[in-house]
């Protein structure tokens, strides 16, 4: 213990204590009272006191209490402090990790009581309290200052440098947990940006400064002392450089949490539609376990609020490094398969028993993830026709995002301008495009070619006109022909074609005179070819024709992108929600997972809205009034577009606390002593003690319980 102002206390003690004792030696001013007789009193006094003043003092409890009070006040005046190795006037930067893994409930040894984040805040507050405050009686000492930075994927300066401890503690308490992954680079950059740039002075021979300029890269001024409150699960920790000041590193790592905590979490969630049957949806779930024993958990698939399926996942034990104790997580997974052509919101929940037993799973926020699965894609189809009634009317009945009938001349124009790219499928009805300058008939894309024989390289060799007849064989398993029967199809005539060798053309249906439905595919072009003229068959009048067209559109257009494009509706917490909505949208708001609404967002001129950064996982629904895009949900004239924010981060789900972290230039071991040396002012306790004794003294006086 050190004393801040011992001389002051000594002077006060030298004056006050003798004064108090002398006051007691001196007779008090006694209150005169007339009594009937002093006879008995005199006897009593004579019996009681042998007229020895020290005996009188020894037995005077009040004097002792007053001496204690005086002593405590004098001790308080001396400003006792606990010894500290911290020199005065340091600048601390407290970086508090608020990423998803900090929500693990192993902040204390007693699991389930406190999250790592709460423990980190507690330790940060302890550090703040240990900062040196300016002395009450001398103005010479500089106080420590601290800056608070909270970081997850982004970093935020909560408080700039201040020595006001209450403000620092308040701002630490105001930090909230997020579900974002952690990245320290920005936090470190923010902190370093506060330091002045190093100024290099050029001097002449006389030693005068002739020129000085700032160096952007190098930092001058006093070094900052970094305190990282984290579990060490920071992906880019190597972006931090520590400095050495007086053989003391400027970077201190306060490891929060336990190395041996078990966590089971979702690390990946994807959906894919089947190549052949787009309505068949597969949801892939990847789970990671840091448990040292094998576990079997249940994964529950919830679609639109109701449980669709529950599957169990066997997770092997995580491997534990014998020397460091670090765990390498084990992983497992499950695939949910379902038939769902429509857009859905699929939620996967792991039942890890973590609610009841924190030992089984310390981090609950990664046990759930949501997937916004768009509906099977609807195609944009162009019909290049000279006016075929059958095809046009059949296609129009299909659920397409766009259907245009274009004249051949217009089509050729669009080929030059590249506008045909907007179509997923181009139906060439009795028309073959002209060869372009490279000699190619078909541009890259998907085609259904009716009534024309496409020459190689994509097509077949025309061998003249055949006699037609019925279909004798067709590929019944092919997606295009799977759902129909061609038994009723009769051809009056058909072109006899020959499939060149080594071409990518396959026959799908054949008459006795050769293939009549063919498919060609290579990297750029995929086409279904029906060389015969429809008007010379009974097919347009058969139901199988419509089915064929629908299957073809499905197969060529919708199936063109087998993986559902989920990325634009998935957000990793820490990023912003950004999307484009129709330009006439108004009243744009985001409905947050907790049920509240955001402020109204103002879209940019091209309809882009940005909200965020998103801190919490969950479903975010963008809401606006106006026109809707094809995939949006419309309820009561209001359009909704759903986004899912999921953690899905293997690094965050691996909750095993790092005992060492590797900075850019050195490896920092966690400060094992969570109690750091702190400057503790004791004087308030002395004063408080004095007050208590004063109260006791008052009570004694009133109780007349004097000794």
């Amino acid at each position, binding site marked *: 213990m050190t004393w801040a102002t011992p001389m002051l206390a000594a002077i006060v003690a030298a004056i006050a204590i003798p004064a108090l004792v002398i006051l007691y030696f001196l007779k008090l001013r*006694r*209150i005169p009272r*007339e009594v*009937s007789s002093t*006879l*008995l009193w*005199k006897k009593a006094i004579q*019996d009681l006191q042998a007229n020895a003043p020290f005996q009188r003092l020894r037995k005077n409890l009040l004097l002792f209490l007053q001496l204690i009070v005086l002593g405590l006040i004098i001790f308080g005046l001396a400003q006792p402090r606990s010894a500290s190795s911290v020199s005065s006037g340091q600048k601390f930067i407290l970086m508090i990790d608020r990423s998803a893994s900090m929500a693990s409930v192993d902040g204390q040894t007693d699991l389930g009581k406190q999250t790592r984040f709460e423990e980190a805040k507690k330790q940060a507050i302890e550090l703040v309290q240990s900062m040196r405050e300016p002395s009450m009686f001398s103005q010479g000492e500089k106080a420590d200052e601290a800056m608070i930075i909270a970081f997850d994927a982004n970093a935020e300066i909560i408080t700039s440098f201040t020595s006001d401890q209450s403000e620092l503690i308040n701002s630490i308490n105001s930090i909230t947990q997020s579900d974002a992954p952690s990245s320290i680079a920005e936090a470190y950059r923010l902190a370093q940006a506060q330091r002045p740039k190093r100024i290099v002075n050029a001097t002449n021979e006389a030693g005068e400064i002739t020129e000085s300029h700032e160096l952007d890269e190098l930092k001058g001024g006093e070094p900052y002392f970094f305190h990282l409150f984290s579990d060490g699960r920071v992906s880019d920790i190597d972006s931090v450089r520590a400095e050495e000041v007086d053989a003391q590193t400027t970077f201190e790592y306060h490891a929060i949490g336990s190395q041996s905590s078990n966590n089971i979490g979702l690390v990946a969630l994807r959906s894919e539609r089947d190549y052949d049957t787009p309505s068949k949806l597969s949801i892939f779930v990847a789970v990671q376990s840091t448990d040292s024993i094998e576990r079997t958990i249940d994964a529950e698939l919830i679609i639109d609020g109701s449980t669709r399926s529950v599957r169990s996942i066997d997770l092997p034990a995580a491997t534990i490094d014998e020397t460091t104790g670090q765990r390498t997580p084990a992983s497992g997974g499950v695939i949910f398969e379902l038939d769902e052509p429509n857009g859905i919101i699929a939620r996967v929940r792991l039942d890890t028993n973590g609610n009841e037993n924190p030992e089984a799973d310390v981090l609950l926020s990664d046990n759930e993830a949501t997937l916004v699965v768009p509906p099977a894609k609807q195609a944009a189809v162009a019909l290049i026709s000279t006016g075929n009634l059958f095809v046009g009317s059949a296609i129009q009945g299909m659920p397409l995002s766009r259907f245009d009938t274009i004249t051949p001349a217009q089509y050729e124009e669009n080929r030059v301008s590249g506008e045909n790219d907007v179509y997923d499928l181009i139906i060439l009805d009795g028309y073959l495009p002209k060869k372009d300058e490279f000699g190619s008939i078909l541009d890259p894309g998907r085609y259904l070619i009716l009534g024309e024989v496409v020459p190689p390289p994509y097509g077949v060799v025309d061998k003249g006109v055949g006699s037609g007849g019925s279909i004798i064989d067709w590929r019944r398993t092919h997606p295009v022909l799977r759902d129909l029967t061609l038994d009723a199809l009769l051809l009056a005539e058909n072109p006899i074609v020959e499939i060149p060798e080594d071409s990518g053309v396959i026959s799908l249906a054949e008459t006795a005179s050769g293939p009549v439905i063919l498919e060609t595919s290579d990297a750029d072009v995929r086409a279904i070819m029906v060389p015969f003229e429809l008007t010379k068959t009974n097919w347009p009048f058969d139901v199988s024709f419509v089915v064929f067209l629908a299957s073809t559109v499905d197969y060529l257009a919708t199936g063109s992108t087998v993986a559902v494009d989920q990325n634009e509706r998935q957000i990793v917490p820490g990023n912003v929600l950004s999307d484009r909505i129709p330009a006439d949208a108004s009243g744009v708001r985001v409905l947050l997972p907790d049920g509240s609404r955001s402020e109204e967002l103002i879209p940019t001129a091209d309809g882009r809205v940005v909200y965020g950064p998103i801190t919490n996982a969950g479903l975010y629904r963008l809401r606006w009034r106006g026109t809707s895009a094809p995939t949006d949900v419309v309820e009561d004239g209001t359009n909704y577009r759903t986004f899912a924010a999921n953690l899905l981060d293997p690094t965050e789900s691996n909750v095993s606390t790092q005992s060492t972290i590797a900075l850019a230039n050195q490896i920092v071991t966690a400060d094992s002593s969570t109690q750091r040396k702190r400057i503790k002012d004791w004087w308030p306790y002395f004063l408080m003690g004095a007050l208590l004794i004063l109260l006791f003294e008052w009570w004694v006086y009133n109780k007349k319980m004097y000794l």
Partner: protein
Amino acid sequence: MLRSENPTRPTTIDELLSSQLIAKISQLDVSSKKIFAGKLKGERRSKKRGESVEFADHRPYATGDDLRHIDWNIYARLDRFFMKLFMEEEDLSLHIVIDASASSDCGEPNKFYYMQQVAMAMGYIGLINLNRVAVTAVGLRDELVIPGGDKSIAGNIRDLRGRRRTHDLARFLCSIEPEGSTDFAQACKRIAMTRRGKGVMIVLSDFLMKEGYETGLRMLVGRGYDVFAIQTLSPQEVEPDIAGDLQLRDVEDGDMAEVTISAPLLKKYKENLAAYCQGLRDFCARREITALTIQTDTPIDTLLLDYLRKRGVLR
């Protein structure tokens, strides 16, 4: 204990003797362990054979006996003179000594007022039973109160007899002012010298006398008086209610005692008081004085009807 700030000073008999109390004590009579002779024929049986109608005994006639008391019937049978002896009824002296020093004027209820009330009640009992009642107030005064008396006597009334002297007694008691100190020994000597007859003497005082009560009491015993010492203490003297650092001043002699009230001091005080009272009782017991310590918060009727009857002062 402390001097009463506004002591009750009775001015009328009603303040000394309430009618309720009169009703209660009217049946009482002053009693003595012995039957005492008196000057006047009272209602009291005397040891002396006397002239009442109650026959007591016979004795042989001796020359000079009153011929009227010869039992002629016996003379007729036995031919010898026998005197008829009758019970003699005599009056009794009731002498009340009341301490009129300043120390009596203390406490709450006031000790002197209490003593006045006791004296009045006792005196009334004596008067209605045709006893000879005398009251002497003891207190050192600067001048002689009674011509030919003594400075240690603050007042005196004597030879009261009969119910109609009640007001005289009350007037006298109301006239006494408690002040000054006492010379108890001298006063007792004076009382012993001047008292007449035989009877009951009741001494009302706190007996807190620096010079001691022993000499005085010793003078009062004997000479045919049955002495009762009633030590009157205020409740505050028994359980002091003072606190803090005090300068205690004796109201009688101005003596100072500086005390810091503390639990041990209070304990010691109470021990001393108990020992003092016990000392008084022991002293009295050895000299056939009936001693009684009473607190002024004790109701008068309890004192009279209970304590004094038990001790044979009243019956």
